[in-house]
């Protein structure tokens, strides 16, 4: 292909699209470098991080219309990418608000720099359209996370947590790379849209051994399953959450889960579901996601029932939520736009109305999950003081008497997590389970319906441990042997928590605010427009 054409259709627009990430990353690099030479109070560093995020947000909204060529670019700016990056960037503000006073002055530049890198890395994952680039994004999240885990508080517990996370994380990255290598080796392509095109309209002409595709599938699922804390890759979550500061638990509960599912959508569901319903790969992928979803939900909820430590409880709860999201993945593997007989090209997805429901459910659920989980963790952060930390369920007993508004806010988050209408979490569960229920009409229907039933039963069991906290807050007297809570959260923390709670309510009453963009994003994730002629040549030449 003519390098000049490539420059104008792929490279330049890609750079424009990636401007927000580039901007945030450069500020992060400057901060981390300057931190070694100048001493400034913490406020300076947190404000510059906020400015970087705000600039990123501005640039992101300005570059919203830029598009890149799907089959040659490393980064996309389709609705999926734009919407996910917006959500991740906004959640970056919330994380920053919660984290702004969680570190001392000396380590502030590295701390906020790492935070910026994590946000930028997660945005790269959402935009990535290339196996290697996706991996870079994932690692750009992982490596600063190792740093952050150990930066804020340095003692043996955080050391243990950081070490565990480090070892298991690189192990999972190894699994993921192995899977990506198989994918590349089987198809000879690394552009994700091109892979989807090969799997779908082109029917993978050069796939002699479908087993290789299956191996790639299992390994990629394993590598990303670690990020989202799906069984059996979940072991680190409770230990690491418990051992690290609350703000890190909040970050770990959200960012890796989000990018994990975004990456699963990009690399697996969007690619594999492009194949026909009867293809071996689709059937096996559904089985794989089905097993992981069922086991993850059940194990997460069963273990959460036993926990008294809040961070462990939320670790298992986050595992359970990964299970619910996996239901959406199973549906997304199965539901794909079908191609009219005789055609190999796919332009408009409007002919069918349900092919995107699984992905839409995932995207909606992620937003709801971010709001309620970050909200709950934010309240724990706001309530904790060095002399009276909030660690266990008992620490919250009688909260409603002293701090009725805080208790109400936490109750809203917990009700939403339990999936009680009309809150954001309810609509998330509703979308995912109803998409599973209506996923198939053929003989596959019972399989999906059983999964939906397992999910509903699980969320019923899950309500127990959330409501236990609510009961404790409202009906039990405060523990007499502990000093009263005297929270003194700064305003950024308050704003962050208030935003989470408020949006949990707003999304609950007006789900369309999130579900409409989720739908367009989900549609764009599986859209495969007609490739430009030169690309077709190249694809067939391989």
């Amino acid at each position: 292909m003519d390098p000049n054409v490539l420059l104008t259709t792929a490279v330049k627009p890609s750079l424009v699209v990636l401007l927000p990430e580039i901007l945030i990353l450069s500020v992060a690099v400057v901060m981390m470098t300057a931190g070694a030479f100048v001493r400034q109070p913490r406020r300076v560093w947190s404000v510059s991080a906020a400015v970087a995020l705000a600039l990123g947000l501005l640039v992101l909204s300005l570059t919203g219309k830029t598009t890149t060529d799907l089959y040659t670019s490393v980064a996309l700016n389709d609705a999926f990418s734009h919407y996910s990056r917006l959500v991740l960037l906004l959640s970056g503000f919330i994380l920053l608000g919660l984290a702004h006073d969680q570190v001392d002055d000396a380590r502030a530049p590295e701390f906020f720099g790492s935070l910026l890198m994590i946000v930028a890395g997660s945005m790269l994952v959402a935009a990535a359209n290339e196996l290697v680039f996706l991996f870079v994004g994932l690692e750009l999240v992982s490596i600063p996370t190792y740093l952050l885990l150990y930066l804020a508080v340095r003692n043996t517990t955080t050391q243990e947590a950081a070490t565990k996370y480090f070892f298991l994380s690189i192990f999972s990255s190894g699994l993921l790379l192995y899977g990506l290598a198989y994918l590349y080796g089987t198809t000879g392509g690394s552009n994700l849209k091109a892979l989807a095109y090969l799997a779908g309209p082109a029917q993978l002409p050069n796939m002699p051994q479908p087993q290789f595709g299956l191996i790639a599938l299992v390994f990629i699922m394993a590598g990303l399953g670690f990020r989202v804390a799906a069984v059996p890759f979940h072991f680190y979550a409770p230990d690491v959450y418990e051992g690290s500061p609350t703000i890190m638990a909040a970050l770990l509960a959200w960012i890796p889960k989000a990018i994990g599912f975004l990456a699963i959508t990009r690399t697996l569901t969007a690619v594999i579901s492009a194949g026909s319903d009867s293809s071996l790969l689709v059937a096996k992928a559904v089985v794989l996601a089905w097993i992981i979803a069922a086991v993850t939900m059940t194990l997460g909820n069963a273990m959460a029932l036993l926990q008294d430590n809040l961070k462990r409880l939320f670790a298992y709860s986050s595992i359970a939520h990964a299970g619910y999201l996996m239901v959406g993945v199973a549906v997304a593997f199965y539901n794909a736009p079908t191609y009219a007989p005789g055609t190999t090209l796919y332009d408009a997805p409007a002919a069918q109305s349900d092919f995107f429901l699984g992905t839409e459910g995932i995207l909606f659920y992620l937003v709801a999950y971010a709001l309620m989980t970050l909200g709950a963790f934010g309240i724990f952060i706001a309530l904790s003081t060095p002399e009276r930390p909030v660690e266990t369920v008992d620490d919250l007993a009688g909260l409603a008497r002293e701090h009725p508004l805080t208790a109400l806010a936490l109750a809203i988050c917990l009700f939403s997590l339990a999936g009680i209408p009309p809150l954001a979490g309810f609509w998330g569960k509703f979308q995912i389970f109803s998409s599973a229920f209506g996923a198939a009409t053929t003989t596959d229907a019972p399989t999906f319906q059983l999964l939906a039933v397992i999910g509903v039963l699980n969320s019923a069991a899950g309500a127990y441990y959330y409501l236990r906290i609510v009961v404790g807050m409202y009906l039990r007297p405060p523990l007499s042997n502990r000093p009263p809570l005297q929270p003194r959260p700064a305003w950024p923390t308050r704003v962050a928590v208030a935003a989470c709670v408020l949006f949990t309510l707003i999304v609950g009453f007006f789900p369309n605010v999130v579900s409409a963009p989720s739908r367009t994003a989900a549609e764009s994730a599986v859209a495969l427009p007609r490739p430009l002629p030169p690309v077709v040549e190249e694809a067939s030449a391989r």
Partner: protein
Amino acid sequence: MSQFLAHNAWLVPFFPLLGSFIVVVAAKWLREQSHLPIVAGIALSFLVSFSLWMVAGPDVTSPAIEWLTISGFNVPIQFRLDGLTTMMLAMVTFVATLIAVFASGYMAGDPGYPRFFALIGLFVFSMTGLVLSNNYVLTYLFWEGVGVCSYMLVGFWHSKPSAAAAAKKAFLVNRIGDFGFAIAIFWLWSASINHDVSYGNVLSRENLDQLGPAAIMGISFLLFWGATAKSAQVPLYVWLPDAMEGPTPVSALIHAATMVTAGVYLIARSTPLLVRAHEVQALVAVIGCLTALLSATIALTQTDLKRVMAYSTVSQLGFMFMGLGAGVNNVAQLAVFAAMFHLFTHAFFKALLFLASGSVMHAMGNVIDMRRFSGLRHRLPITHLTFAAGGLALAGFPLTAGFWSKDEILLALKHAAHQAEPGWGGIYVAVYWIAVLTAFMTAFYTGRAYFLTFWGPEKLPSPQDPEALAEAVDEVDHGSSHTEHDHGHDAGHGHDGHHVGQESPPIMTYPLMILAVCALIVGLIFGPTGLFEHHLHLTLGYEHLGHLEAHGADWLVMLMGSLAAILGLGLSYLFYAHRSPIPAQLAERLRPLYLASYNKFWIDEIYEKAVVGTTLLLAEISAIFDMVIDAIVRGIAYLPRWLGGAGLAPFQNGLVQFYAGVTAMGVAFLLIIVLFWL
């Protein structure tokens, strides 16, 4: 222009809501001025409604605002501005404005003054929303909204046990109806094209054609079920007479003019569906007829003025349903016009009668028992005249509002008797004659209430009345609530400088006078001129309804109606104007009948025994069952804990090499499954 107005239809519910909001926020400062934002809000929304009347058309809708769009379930916020809706809007906001003005005088001095007006504003918001909605789900939401407002307003003096009980009863009975309505919506959702429950889709010909006969009949029946509770029809009418425990303006607004007609509205809205189920239509007519007759019979002997009006409302709603039920084949258009016209005129004269009763109650120091006062026509001249105007309209005296609309209903019934499916005509013949009889009874009890209150020797209530003493004994029997009762009901709207036996202040009498004029002439203006019919013709789906080639005035029907009214009024004049002994002798002669009517046919007691008793028994049995279930549930609840504790917890041992090992084994396991097993 019409586009502009249609786009701003949201202002109609918005103004009263805004008024409510202001009252809630600024109650502390507004206190005795709390009625201002509400009166202004409702008046503004009347102005908007009035202009909307001009732009009405079968397919005029406001732009849809996406609200719920989840997995194939799509409920937009959208308003429909056709003839039916704009008629209801104009009527509701007009009557509500006058009633709010009246209430500002009536409720003066009540400690809950701001709360009262905030709730009234909320009610008007819900009611206008109900008639504006362009789909069944949104209608249902507002339907519940008016129910909640009614609950809170019936129980406005909630420290009074009877008011609290009445509110609870109203709410629970209405829930039974809501159940039917909800199932109707589920059914509509699953059976309609595109799962779209908007009126435009559901009532379109294509959709109605593709619905099976079972769906048509079932949905019609369920919708009517929902309507029977809201509009107080047999067997669910029992809540409405008790709802008179609320303040009188509430009875006038909610339980006479507007909310109780929501059921009639729903059926009228769904007429294109209903005309395809003639069995359900016959049921509607029969139930309406039964209700009208039963409650008119009860109204004959009641001594509580407000209760007479309450049973009369139930009876008149029965008339409306008779009208709706008469819409077979070619009568469909005439029938729905007649029913809606009666709804329209009834709103004016019944609101007037309630307000006039309220004015009597106000002047009599909150006594409403007709045995304790009489001959008030000289003391309360304005109340007397306005009540007389309302009474004439209710009785259907020639040329008054009620005459024209009742005449239309009788006409529709008469045509229905000829046009009905073979074998069904007999039902309509019976319904027609019972309707005439009921019209006669209506005139009689209206006259009775009027003459007992305003004619005869002048008498004001005194604490020494035997009825008052009996009531006091009753109160003591009912425990310590006596003082609270006084506080709630009597001191409720205190009489600052207002003495018993005096005419109400102008702020109350002016609305009465306006309504009185309406009650007399509104029928003449809208009925024979065809104005109403022409406007209602602009309703979605009505143009396809069957209609008669030409229907002029039927003199025979008119004569029957007039005769019934004049005979009823004349008889009541003979009996009550000069206190003849005949009624007492009749009551003695027909003692069982009299007692049955006086005790409302013991329907409440029967329900108490049959329904409430059975439910309680069921609850007892369930409680025993519950213990067994509880044990099982506990066992199941323990299972995951056991699974987590004994089965899974050991894996979480904190050793990173173990975690990595298990992860690797997990990958291997999944690989084996995917590659070789399934």
